[in-house]
């Protein structure tokens, strides 16, 4: 009922589809844009798995309706890194064992893509404060904190693949 045409700008590309106003951005990304890297966990803003960037800032895509996002730039995990050349955050999470099942990882990567851009040299306390918005049921978080510190250091040094 009441579907309307919606055009989203996702990772620099325009995607047009028909959906109701109640279509969540998280579902639109997965079902209408074919971008299934954005994961859907709790659907009420607690778990952080669905975090994407809107105009460069992290946003819960499950608390946003796709129709609201017309005219804004959406960035998802699919734009981060590429096959054979992971982004610094991804590489660090891999090396420091910052993930197991990987369900929460896209939300964590998108959150810290934005946070580290604004805060290139965060304290451990600041990292933990931000990470508190992303639930992980596998790792116990310690290795994620280590990975973010490692990635931040490499990004400050301007190289994604420096040996540790």
């Amino acid at each position: 009922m009441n579907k309307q045409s919606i055009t989203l700008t996702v990772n620099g590309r325009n995607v047009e589809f028909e959906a109701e106003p109640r279509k969540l951005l998280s579902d639109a990304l997965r079902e209408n844009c074919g971008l299934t890297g954005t994961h859907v966990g709790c659907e009420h803003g607690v778990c952080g798995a669905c975090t994407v960037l809107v105009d460069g800032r992290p946003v819960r895509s499950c608390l946003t309706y796709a129709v609201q996002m017309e005219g804004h730039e959406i960035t998802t995990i699919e734009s981060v890194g590429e096959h054979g050349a992971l982004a610094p955050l991804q590489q660090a999470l891999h090396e420091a064992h910052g993930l197991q099942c990987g369900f929460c990882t896209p939300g964590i990567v998108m959150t810290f893509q934005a946070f580290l851009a604004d805060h290139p040299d965060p304290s451990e306390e600041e990292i933990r404060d931000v990470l508190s918005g992303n639930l992980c049921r596998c790792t116990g978080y310690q290795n994620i904190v280590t990975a973010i510190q490692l990635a931040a250091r490499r990004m400050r040094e301007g190289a994604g693949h420096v040996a540790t």
Partner: protein
Amino acid sequence: MKPAAFSYLRPTSIEEALDQLAAGTGAGAKVIAGGQSLGPMMNMRLATPAQLIDLNDLTELAYVREAGDWIEIGALTRHYQLAESPVLRRHCPLLAQAAQTIGHYAIRQRGTIGGSLAHADPAAQLALVAVTLDARLKLVRPGATRSVQAGDFFASAMTTALQPDEVILSVQFPKAAPREAASFNMFNRRHGDYAIVAAATTVAVEGAIVQRVRLGLGGVAPMPRNLDELALPFLGQVPGEQWIKRLAAAAREAIAPEDNPRISALYRQELAERLVARALSQAISLLHG
């Protein structure tokens, strides 16, 4: 966990938004700003508005500016903007401190001060700071604006003085005095959750003598409590350890929190006493610093 169907409007001016709200109030229209409270409620179908009027394009309502002895904040100002504002850090540090503790990083990017006050959760930080500082809310409806004190705005849990066709336009907070310090303290079980109890205070001195104390508690009643009157017998004194202890004990005695099986009234009273003591002590040490 999907919201019920609704129709969607995206006004480009406040006048347009008010006309749309006036036309839609009888038919279940609701305004949405950051959506960090309304979104979850709609996903869980605790709220099922027939129409959403999206205020996010009204970017002229996102500002923090000085207005004489007051700081005026537009309703669409996001929590992170409150926390990072140099004007607030200087002139209203209690508000900046409290905003930094709201939810999580991503939530603070989106949630707005107008939305939080209109939502009126009894444990919310911004409602507590508004009541503690006697903030003034400017409300607007087609052809009329009015100003309401925060103490009169909150009627009960999730209930405010906002009429169905009214929207919050801005909120004014008093500037801190030259020798005044603030502290916001809250306790929750998990980082980012709502507070079980939260305490907000400002202490102003001349020399070593206390001139004014503002004190507010959240999470101990259906809406935030302003406890300034409790502090009146404590003015004109040098605030030492005993002073803090006695005022914190008075705050504990002044509240009668709900007793429920999950969190007992006694626990909230003990938390209130500890948090008030900690907040007062932090504010006083800032004055010495």
